[in-house]
């Protein structure tokens, strides 16, 4: 992590810490939404941005996590935050099972398969699969999370919970990108043939990215369920997956700051355009097109590591 990024992160933390003092409940809730979508988009970014796998069914993993939390907390009365790792685990397992047979599909074929997967999950939830999901009504009465004996219910309180998780995620995923695993994914995305030639087990790495992304989306599902206290299949429809896809590409695939900026824009812009009344989505669509046309690589594209002479010298010296 370089100095600039660290400073920016610090400034971000400081701003976030004081935000609840300056904003009203509405804008805090908007930021809560941004936080949730940032989490989801960061998890999708591991799959789509880092590994280059076209996944347009991410809402399925999010749904598995949210429903795991809802079922465990309403049926078995587990505290909501205890279900966080379980939701992640459930989503990861689900991803491992469904992704294994299709992971080798190329680009657009994988895209439609993931869309199909997302729809199958939604339809299963609507049809009350296993008699656990409550059908179209969904599940309700999910308890509020309790942190150190303190019940979280107000937007300001959720704000700290959600954004703490976002910051943790940013830190972990940034580390991940620098790791051997992250570099392998980058290689895989940039040149799958060469990556395979260099002894990277492409299938295993792709699958690992899928499972990791899914696990994180599952945990975001826990936070969503806890915040809304009611979840229904419609909250995980195809449009949710599309929005997440949008966030990652619009912000800049593979770039963590880009993805967060993307989440800010995709959530805040439709809110900001409320003044346009019924035309607000029209304006939103237009802005999306214009942004993409003028920033074709995404708003904050991933800076690819450049080859520098001194690196070469250092490598020579090390030899």
């Amino acid at each position: 992590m370089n100095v600039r990024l660290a400073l920016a992160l610090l400034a971000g933390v400081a701003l976030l810490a004081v935000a609840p003092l300056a904003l009203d409940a509405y804008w805090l809730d908007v930021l809560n939404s941004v936080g949730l979508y940032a989490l989801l988009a960061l998890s999708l970014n591991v799959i789509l941005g880092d590994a280059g796998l076209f996944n347009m069914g991410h809402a399925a993993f999010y749904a598995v996590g949210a429903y795991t939390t809802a079922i465990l907390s309403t049926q078995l009365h587990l505290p909501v935050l205890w279900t966080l790792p379980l939701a992640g685990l459930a989503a990861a397992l689900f991803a491992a099972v469904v992704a294994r047979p299709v992971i080798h599909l190329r680009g657009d074929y994988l895209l439609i398969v993931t869309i199909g997967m997302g729809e199958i999950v939604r339809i299963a939830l609507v049809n009350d699969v296993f008699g656990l999901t409550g059908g179209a009504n969904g599940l309700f009465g999910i308890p509020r999370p309790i942190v150190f004996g303190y019940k979280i219910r107000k937007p300001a309180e959720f704000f700290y919970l959600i954004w703490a998780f976002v910051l943790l995620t940013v830190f972990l995923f940034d580390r991940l990108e620098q790791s051997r695993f992250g570099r392998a994914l980058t290689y895989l995305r940039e040149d799958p043939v060469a990556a395979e030639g260099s002894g990277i087990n492409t299938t295993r790495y792709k699958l690992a990215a899928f499972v990791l992304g899914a696990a994180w989306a599952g945990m975001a599902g826990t936070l969503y369920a806890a915040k809304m206290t009611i979840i229904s299949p419609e909250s995980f429809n195809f449009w949710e997956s599309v929005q997440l896809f949008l966030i990652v590409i619009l912000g800049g695939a593979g770039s963590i700051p880009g993805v967060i900026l993307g989440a800010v824009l995709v959530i805040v812009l439709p809110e900001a355009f409320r003044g346009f009344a019924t035309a607000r989505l029209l304006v939103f669509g237009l802005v999306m097109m214009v942004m993409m046309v003028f920033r074709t690589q995404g708003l904050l594209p991933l800076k690819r590591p450049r080859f520098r002479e001194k690196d070469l010298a250092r490598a020579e010296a090390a030899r």
Partner: protein
Amino acid sequence: MEQFLQQLINGLAVGGIYALIALGYTMVYGVLKLINFAHGDLFTYGGYLGLTLLTSLALQGRVGTAAAVALLVLMVMGLVGVMGVVLERAAYRPLRESPRLSAVVSALGASIFLQNALMLLYGARVQVYPEGLLPQVAVSLFGLQVPLLRILVVLASVVMMAALYLFVQKTKIGTAVRAAAIDQGAARLMGIDVNKVVSLVFLIGPALGGVAGLLVGLYYGQVNFTMGWIYGMKAFTAAILGGIGNIPGAMVGGLLLGVIEALGAAYLSIAWKDAIAFCVLILILIVRPTGLLGERVAEKV
């Protein structure tokens, strides 16, 4: 058995519409490797424009039914085709050299824009075609009463697919389209104006989608501003099922998807219909990773 045949025909009629829309997806994809998510909305515009033309020009009753429909088809094709060309210029051409997915976002933006523009122009209520324009005749087929229009819908899509296929395979311009699809750089070196080819593709694909919208309006009698989203998704699925980029593949995929849906609803469950269709799609792709008629090619990045 009778029910099976009936469902087969039901499926083919729905599949015919999917196929027509899928042709547009597949053509655009073949040349640009772009999934034009706004294609479904252009389809919706076809339905709405058809209605506006029909009522404002008062075609009904002034000329014969066949002439009125033919006129409508031509006008809708022209208008939606031009919309497609404009869309490509505005939203996709600036992104031609950038990562593939960037254009997908632009396409989604265009889709949201087009859909909401339609809502603002026409209002959110369902729009209804005037009654009685087309004759509600049924013909006897294998001992079943089948509405004539259903047969015409399937025939129309087969004819257009065939025409498109011949155009791409047999004409000089079609050869240019195929060349651009294989390698744009090389095509340019051969003196092919790739921009023109792309414009042409964006004229033909949306024109076909527009006709599909018009057919839906004429046959089902109603259009709504969100219908492109579902039809677009189904058509995209159909294009993938057949092998995207492949014209007969779009046709096969569309008809097959329609039949799978109808039979799934009939013999398994109506509520799970779409899930069944997607399951079949996934199974087919596991066995044939590039769709039914898709070529086995390594991915170009």
